[in-house]
């Protein structure tokens, strides 16, 4: 298969970027999107040019490093996958593919398609944990957790922190990311204890970093590679409201 790629290139955070057009030919439909970029990079290196920088690591859809906005969709035109699990068979031969970095004020571009998502770590540091030290915890089976609650917690915990929710949201809101963590812990008795502090601190940090406000468009849910539901955002809102008025 042959493709025309329009790729965002930007030397560093301060530089002004631009789109660059490249062609790749003879790509196997079984090739993953990132492998297709590897092939492009090989071409560039052969021409003594700088390869395109993009974040990637596990290439099996779990580390959350990939952050490509492909033809108007985070992680491209397949549902419930990250860009590394997207295969070229999802495109048509001869397609023009536009590849952009995540765009959000709190995710500044570092180089080419690489963005700085350390804002997520800062939100986590603000309260995305249960305050227990190593050791001195009760036996794991001391507190039973209703299976349905554990399952809902696991649904939320599946978040890989890729930032597709922010990238997809027209407001660049990080609500789904924050909601996933708050919701996971709110569903478990172990986490319930400090829900109030957690939700207030995480939301305050999220706001401080300049993420947008949620307007319930649902784009995050539609693009989340782990299909995390916006019902977790409702739970976050609920926890926030009860933290404020109760």
């Amino acid at each position, binding site marked *: 298969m042959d493709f025309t790629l329009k790729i965002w290139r930007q030397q*560093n955070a301060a530089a002004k970027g631009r789109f660059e057009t490249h062609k790749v030919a003879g790509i196997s439909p*079984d090739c*993953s999107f*990132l*492998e297709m970029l*590897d*092939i492009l990079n*090989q071409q*560039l*290196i*052969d021409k*003594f040019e*700088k*390869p395109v*920088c993009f974040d990637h*690591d*596990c*290439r*099996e859809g779990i*580390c*959350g*490093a990939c952050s490509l906005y492909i033809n108007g969709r985070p992680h491209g035109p*397949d549902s*419930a*996958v990250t860009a590394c*699990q997207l*295969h070229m068979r999802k495109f048509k031969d001869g397609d023009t593919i536009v590849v952009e970095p995540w765009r959000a004020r709190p995710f500044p571009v*570092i*180089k080419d398609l*690489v963005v*700085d998502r*350390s804002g997520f*770590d800062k939100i*986590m*540091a*603000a309260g*995305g*944990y*249960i*305050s*227990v*030290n*190593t*050791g001195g915890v009760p*036996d*794991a*089976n001391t507190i*039973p957790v*209703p*299976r349905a609650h*554990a*399952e809902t917690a*696991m649904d939320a*915990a*599946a978040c*890989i922190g890729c930032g597709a929710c922010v990238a997809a949201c027209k407001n660049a809101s990080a609500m789904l990311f924050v909601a996933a963590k708050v919701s*996971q812990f709110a*569903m*478990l008795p*172990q986490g319930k204890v400090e829900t109030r502090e957690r939700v207030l601190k995480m939301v305050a940090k999220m706001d401080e970093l300049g993420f947008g406000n949620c307007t319930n468009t649902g784009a995050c849910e539609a693009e989340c590679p782990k299909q995390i539901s916006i019902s977790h955002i409702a739970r976050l809102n609920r926890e926030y409201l009860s933290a404020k008025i109760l």
Partner: protein
Amino acid sequence: MTKLNARIPEGPMAEKWNNYKAGQKLVNPANKRKLDIIVVGTGLAGASAAASLGELGFNVKAFCYQDSPRRAHSIAAQGGINAAKNYPNDGDSVYRLYYDTIKGGDYRSREANVYRLAEVSGNIIDQCVAQGVPFARDYGGLLDNRSFGGAQVSRTFYARGQTGQQLLLGAYSAMMRQVNAGTVKLYPRTEMLDIVLVEGKARGIITRNLVTGNIERHFGHAVVIATGGYGRAFYLSTKAMGSNGSAAWQAYKRGALFANPSFVQIHPTCIPVHGDYQSKLTLMSESLRNDGRIWVPRKKEDAEALRNGRVKPKDIANEDRDYYLERRYPAFGNLVPRDVASRAAKERCDAGYGVGSGLAVYLDFEESIGRLGKKVIEERYGNLFQMYEKIVDENPYETPMMIYPAIHYCMGGLWVDYELMTTIPGLFSIGECNFSDHGANRLGASALMQGLADGYFILPYTIQNYLAAEIMTPRMPVDGREFLETEGQIRERLNRLMQIKGKQSVDRMHRKFGLLLWEMVGMARNSEGLNKAIKEFSSLREEFWTDIRITGGIDEMNPELEKASRVADFIETGELMARDALQREESCGGHFREEFQTPEGEASRNDNDFMFVAAWEYTGTGKEPVLHREPLNYENIKVQTRNYKI
């Protein structure tokens, strides 16, 4: 061999760890904050260690090459984590977990370390539950267990098919809490390039900021390496693209001994290679073998017809299928340990019975779907089936999966003593990066256990025994002679790499090397191939340093430079792997020497001559390393031949 002193505490096996803790030196709280600890790597071992050390009050600096510590490759572990909780009342105990681990490791692991691992395994589960890890639960709300990798008891805790992810996020959360508390400082997108030794002790590291290219110096009273395995030396593996063995390799070059480098694990259930552009192999959880049956055609002509696509797998009648694991190992069948399953698949494919590209076998769920119904199979493996379909574009509910073994885990690693300290004082190694617990073969669901055991419950104790003597050592300025010298060497190395401006890209050369390594130091090895490998890798190293092409600059984000530096180390590691495989004239666990097998083709271990840990000492690039032997004594277990037939 005075170099190796494992410093195993006295006393009966079950009391060693308690005795150790009772007698060890501790650091008082006021002194803890005066002590800096560098932790390199933020996977299960690194993150849990950084969190625990931070909680104790030490001043921790945590480094990772990823943009966030949460992306460390522990996250990709699927199946589960073992613990001797005996919740199902099926006869599990600390002793049995220890026994299974030693046996599974083919009697090449250190007994005292393994016993301690089994002892603390239960604490890990308690800790993770308290952190909010959403383990699977039964309808009564208590934790669910499953049997994994052929264990006779159900001791594996799991969180769907994402156990590694959930455990890592738990450890990451705990670490981020300490970041907030100010005891841990994070250095993401920062790669360790060398260790700084001052008067023979590890005192710091040199790093490269992967965003700016800046070379930086960091001081620590102790350095902990938790950077995982070197499996990506093979190019194609289930490791992450950035996983590398460079931190451990630099430690080796600075004097730490490297143990059992040839012990790498080849996982039997990976999605087969499908093209030469391929960058990585995807693991399908071992749990699939609980319900899937592995087969190839009984007749070569059928295999050929399947390869050509002339017939479909379901066209092959049951009597024409060779369920070779069930045939060869009636007692364990499809649940034999990983090394055995992998070799059996290779044997069939080498004999011409492979399907797909010729290097694949079927993992078939037809029978279990018939027996249990599609719904049950979907509940158990739905996400795995979906993942398979996304990658291969075939529906595994209707046509059998194709699988083939792939490099997955490194049992070998930096040699450490009972305290997890390498032969360099003050340099510790934890998790997959060290060698101690899995011998020649790791059991399923044990890697997560070991990483967290080291990080939460072992290192935070043992490191204090070392640091207690360091409380009078003030923080060193990083412009001391040793720091500047080491930095100079790193700068020189990077500049040299940049200036080669040869013809071959890093990936091309890595792929070439990886294939050679797979052929000669892979699933089956022989002295001829290994000798050839040592020669070829040595000339490949020369070729690398004269013909590599790195575009871009040194003072900017440059993934090609990062990869080049890692591949340079991989080639040297490959050479050591081959040497280690060559000296070990036996077959054990993941190490299979064709010369040493039984008439039925099973591994033939040589306990009289090779029941030792092979620890290698660096003597210079291109020079033959020196082998040190740590004899292994099993006091509490009868050494037997592993038998999965009856």
